[in-house]
């Protein structure tokens, strides 16, 4: 019998510039301290990007669990 995925809570948010996977993020702040334009805000368990982001990609690489990506590079965005 084929299994059917009934509900999938969306866990990737993006602001057009960068995307964050909320289920992966460990809220460690490594990306926040690394970002050269101070474009990431982390309120303990909720991370957002602002429009100062230059899409330099430093946060993508420093994130130890791969929670950040470009909106179109993201594996879940590609699924759509």
């Amino acid at each position, binding site marked *: 019998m084929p299994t059917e995925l009934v509900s999938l809570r969306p866990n990737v948010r993006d602001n057009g510039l960068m995307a964050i996977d909320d289920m992966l993020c460990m809220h*460690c*702040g*490594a990306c*926040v*301290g690394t970002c050269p334009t101070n474009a990431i805000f982390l*309120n*303990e368990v909720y991370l957002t990007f602002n429009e100062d982001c230059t899409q330099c990609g430093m946060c993508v*690489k420093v994130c*130890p669990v791969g929670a950040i990506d470009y909106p179109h590079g993201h594996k879940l965005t590609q699924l759509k």
Partner: protein
Amino acid sequence: MTLKYDVVVVGAGPAGSSAARYAALGGCNTLMIEKRQEIGSPVRCGEGIARHFLDDCGIPYENKWVAQEVKGAKIISPAGNVLKIDEKHAGNEVGIVLERDAFDKACAKLAAKAGSEIWVKTTAVGLLKDDGRVTGVRVKRLEEEFNIEADCVVAADGYESQVGRWAGMKTLMKAGDITGTLQYRLTNIEPDPDFPHYCEFFLGTCAPAGYIWVFPKDECTANVGLGISLDRLKNKMDLKMYLDAFCKKDPRMKRAQFLDMVTGGVSTCPPIKETVRDGIAMVGDAARHIDPITGGGIGNGCLAGMILGKVLSEIKERGGTYSKEDLQPYEKGWRAELEETLYRNWMAKNKLVTLSDEDFDKIIATLSTAGIEKLSVHAMLKVIKERHPDLVAKFADMI
């Protein structure tokens, strides 16, 4: 109603607690705020600290934050050459492996006992300024958002450090001076004669421009982590790939299981130019007080926090204004204790990242037969100079 304190410390890590404690002891009306709901948790650390920091900073020893006491450090080259160093001389991370959550709470308790107020689940979201001078913080505490006035704000908000930047201080780093870290706490580690008596450091391409650490927590559990310089990370999740490869290769970890997973950023930069401005001072990871070679920052944070707290007390006592000038004794004080080592180790780090696996094999083999006792950059360079003139070219300007 306006809230007003002499000192508001943002961030209840070891550096913040130490600053709050010594400021309160000296009579400052002090508040420390922490954005997490629990001080010290989740742990974001390898948990190693050299014993002397406890005495240096007046932190009384308590069993409840000691997981394991070690005899020393084992430094392991890619080919498996081992250098053992006694804990007294093994750098700022070796001696005690902490229960960091309990340690951070113990530090906060000392601050409370000294008279500091502590709030949790309270995030600094902005700075109040008047004509260039910092006059307080805007905070969000549970559902309320409001201002707290302060004669001096202490930015002890760790690696992510926003507060200092809001005041205009430069804490940005180059990719080569940033280290991404990932750590697994693994249990069910197989016995080995030296385990759990040493903190282990693995060098070489297992962690490019960084190292892998195995810090024992008990007879079958350890913090196994790695740091890699950001300029060597090419793809998403590279850190995980390197750490998984290491765990797979180490026979002791065949049946190891996860107790937790930790991520974080560590600075490996030279000392920053400015840590005080009118009405604000930075301390700990926020001020990039981490040792650029070991990545250890607990001890340095406690020490710099204590120096800052004492300076704040003196300013209070003489009725000063916490201006940039008033805060100079702190700027000078932490530099006197830490700056030279931080700078030297940053220079040495820049050399170490150029070494190949073969270089590390040679150096570790040489150092272990030379009976080097002290893990100081100077001592190591001396031995390398005597025995391996071929390698010395890379370090010429440091000797």
